[in-house]
């Protein structure tokens, strides 16, 4: 039996469980549907055809799906899962025209990323896939941060200095100094603070929290800082990520 670091095992289990709970914009049932759709995309015939096409927009068709999600949401899940390196703002705006709001999109993206990360980790480690989370009843809060502003990304983001007392501590300002927010990617999910927290609470146990990332006086993992960054760069190149 493989022994997994307890902090990471607990963070992944918590992130998985929280997928089934009501979010800010989607219900627990819808969030589990997004998770299921993320897995289904891997065998979608349309996605496979688009991946090999010079331009994904040149291949028409419908995705293999059995969910009740809006078609724009299904398109978002499948493209993010299967061809994220070729996403552009034109594609994103098309989703919005199809009825998928910016906040719904951000929360959906956080779920896709968590499912991709957990499934990839378990496959790489030789562990079986987890069953989908159990949906829990509840009503989305639909609370949008008042200080979110357009400009940095395709959708508005909430900068640390624009956070109000009503917003959760998404940048880990307490007890200080601030632990998140040094890189633009920290802001990416900030339009939905709970989704940002959902992702980063898990991701930091798989990679490194920012203070540990910058501390070269010791190693925090069983592989070195250099090995960690080598792997990160390799994955970014494979996924054609320009960030």
């Amino acid at each position, binding site marked *: 039996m493989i022994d997994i670091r307890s902090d990471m095992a607990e963070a992944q289990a918590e992130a998985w469980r929280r997928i089934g709970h009501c979010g800010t914009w989607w219900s627990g049932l819808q969030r589990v549907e997004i998770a299921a759709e993320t897995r289904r995309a891997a065998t979608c015939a349309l996605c496979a055809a688009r991946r090999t096409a010079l*331009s994904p927009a040149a291949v028409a068709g419908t995705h293999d799906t059995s969910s009740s999600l809006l078609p724009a949401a299904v398109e978002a899940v499948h493209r993010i899962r299967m061809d994220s390196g070729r996403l552009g703002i034109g594609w994103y705006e098309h989703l919005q025209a199809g009825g998928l709001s910016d906040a719904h999109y951000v929360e959906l*993206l956080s779920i896709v990323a968590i499912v991709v990360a957990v499934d990839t980790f378990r496959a790489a480690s030789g562990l079986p896939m987890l069953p989908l989370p159990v949906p829990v009843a509840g009503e989305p809060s639909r609370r949008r941060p008042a200080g979110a502003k357009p400009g940095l990304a395709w959708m508005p983001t909430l900068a640390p200095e624009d956070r109000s007392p009503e917003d959760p501590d998404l940048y880990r300002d307490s007890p200080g100094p601030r632990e998140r927010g040094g890189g*633009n990617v920290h802001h990416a999910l900030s339009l939905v603070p709970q989704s940002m927290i959902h992702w980063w609470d898990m991701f930091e146990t798989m990679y490194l929290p920012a203070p540990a990332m910058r501390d070269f006086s010791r190693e925090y*993992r*069983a*592989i070195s800082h250099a090995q960690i960054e*080598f792997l990160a760069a390799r994955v970014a190149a494979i996924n054609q990520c320009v960030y």
Partner: protein
Amino acid sequence: MDGTSDVGVDHATLLGTFAESALATAAEPLGASRARLMEAIGEAGMIDAAAVIAGFNGITRIADATGIPLEVPKAEQTAGLRATLGIDRFLEAKS
């Protein structure tokens, strides 16, 4: 051979192959690359490597699906390197 390679990172070749196998872009089956990496760096090392690969398989999607830009100082510092490696050409494929 420890696979350190010319990048100066211990076991770089084994780590790189493991990443490629995990993301289904390597010729070597995942089980084989996992076993070779474990033999070289141990189970805890393999687990942490799997975690980094998996975490970045998620966060690259977050970056690409939000259009978040690279920080200006980083973009300036890496401009030459990015041009040499052809990374900026990825931008041309976006739609």
